[in-house]
């Protein structure tokens, strides 16, 4: 088969846009975070639509505004958040899979639901991989995140026939407020009053949230001292001396010194990744 490298130009790239796959597991020994898609469910679904192999690289967006021009024909898919999408300024009613022609411009408008959108392309974006992953991270990839004016590369074939029955992406799974979690390693250090507050009070997503961690607005009064630094993972919930709750996400460091009070399930991490600033959540213990 004659493979041709296509170019995709980021005509406009909003902050918080990065290339992601499932992330890397072998770097923790050197202090390298896992990284990878914040909502793996959305990432996997978009790749499944294109019948992509595992671990292909997709574009993750945390804000609307992307404008991308594909120089060669290709097939793309979108999942995760639900956004208004246009191709050459014409609205697309169901953007699950889109066949892009030569020089076509795809534009992502306002998110109608969810907080993180995945743009996948047949065969994935072509980047150098490190420890089995192409996920962007400072000191691991150059650049460490994506910006306006950059060019991405993909393998351009004549796209496969687009499925006649267009699959519909639903958001039902991330709408509930329940966030399921196991008791963390330091859960037993908390008082009954702290347990009760954590499990019975709604918390809201703070604007101080990024790929390293999602902070919550409400404080939990905390007198615990810092502990010896020990391992943390995506989904570990930390309680700071100031009473702030931080849910560690995919780019978090591999160890931490704050009490580790909860550990979110994989499903809950994906759901949380789709919550917007101000959205309420309720922790539910398993």
């Amino acid at each position: 088969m004659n493979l041709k490298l296509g170019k995709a130009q980021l005509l406009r790239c909003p902050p918080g846009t990065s290339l992601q796959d499932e992330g890397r597991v072998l770097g923790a020994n050197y202090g390298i975070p896992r990284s990878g898609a914040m909502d793996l469910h959305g990432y996997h679904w978009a790749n499944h639509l294109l019948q992509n192999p595992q671990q292909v690289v997709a574009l993750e967006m945390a804000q609307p505004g992307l404008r991308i021009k594909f120089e060669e024909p290709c097939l793309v898919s979108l999942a995760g958040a639900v956004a208004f999408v246009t191709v050459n300024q014409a609205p697309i009613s169901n953007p699950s899979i889109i066949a892009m022609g030569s020089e076509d411009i795809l534009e992502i408008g306002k998110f109608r639901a969810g907080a993180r959108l995945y743009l996948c392309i047949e065969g994935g974006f072509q980047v150098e991989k490190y420890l089995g992953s192409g996920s962007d991270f400072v000191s691991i990839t150059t650049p460490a995140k994506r910006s306006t004016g950059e060019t991405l590369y993909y393998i351009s074939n004549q796209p496969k026939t687009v499925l006649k029955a267009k699959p519909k992406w639903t958001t039902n799974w991330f709408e509930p407020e329940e966030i399921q979690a196991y008791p963390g390693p330091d859960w037993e250090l908390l008082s009954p009053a702290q347990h009760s507050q954590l499990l019975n009070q709604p918390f809201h997503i703070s604007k101080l949230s990024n790929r390293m961690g999602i902070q919550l607005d409400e404080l939990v009064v905390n007198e615990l001292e810092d502990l010896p630094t020990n391992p943390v993972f995506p989904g570990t919930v930390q309680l700071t001396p100031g009473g702030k709750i931080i849910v560690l996400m995919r780019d978090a460091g591999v160890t931490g010194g704050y009490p580790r009070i909860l550990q979110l399930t994989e499903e809950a991490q994906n759901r949380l990744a789709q919550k917007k600033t101000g959205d309420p959540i309720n922790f539910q213990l398993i």
Partner: protein
Amino acid sequence: MKPTYQLISPTLGELVWNTDPTDELLSIQFAYLTYIQTNFSTTLLEVRQGFTRLSLVWKNSTSQQEFIQLSGTLNLIPEPLPEKIWQVPVCYSPKFGQDLESFARSKSLSTEEVIQLHTQPRYRIHFFGFLPGFFYLNGLSPKLHLPRKSIPSPAVPPGSVAIGGKQTGIYPIQSPGGWHIIGRSPLPFFDRKQDPPVWAKPGEQIQFILINPTQLENWTDEDTKIFLQ
């Protein structure tokens, strides 16, 4: 020094030691690491090391249950720690250690005393965390313990040598940071183009060596090679 096993999720758990981090504990952690990596490599996804824990990520819940059954009966012999001592050059001056003078004032010490207390011990590398290539070091003099800054600096330069709480460390890459910056080392601490990307290993030791600002400013790759032999 027998650990307990704490189950966190069906596929995540940790070996727990409720003692202060010491060389003795590190020797036992190494023995467990070797044992686990030798015998469970096919069912284990990842091991992460901390000061008083080893966290184990299993491929499935059955593998974790099998390990729990076994772990209570284990009686491992502590593993000797490596003897390698790395010399790490550091320029302690207000120009490169922006918090050196305020740090000394907070501790009622002269800057000379801070430098003397910081360069005296050998520090044991326990593991890497926080950032790629960030050493977690044990051995800071209690005379230099100081809580972290209330407002973190937005951009700490790479090579910055810092103190936070009971710990000292070196920022391998530019990062926001809440530790007090007392100096700068010219060595590279993380380079993904090298294999492995960090030159030191857990268990090895670090000794800080005083250099002056002229030496720091004129540092060459050849100088680095001499230190990293």
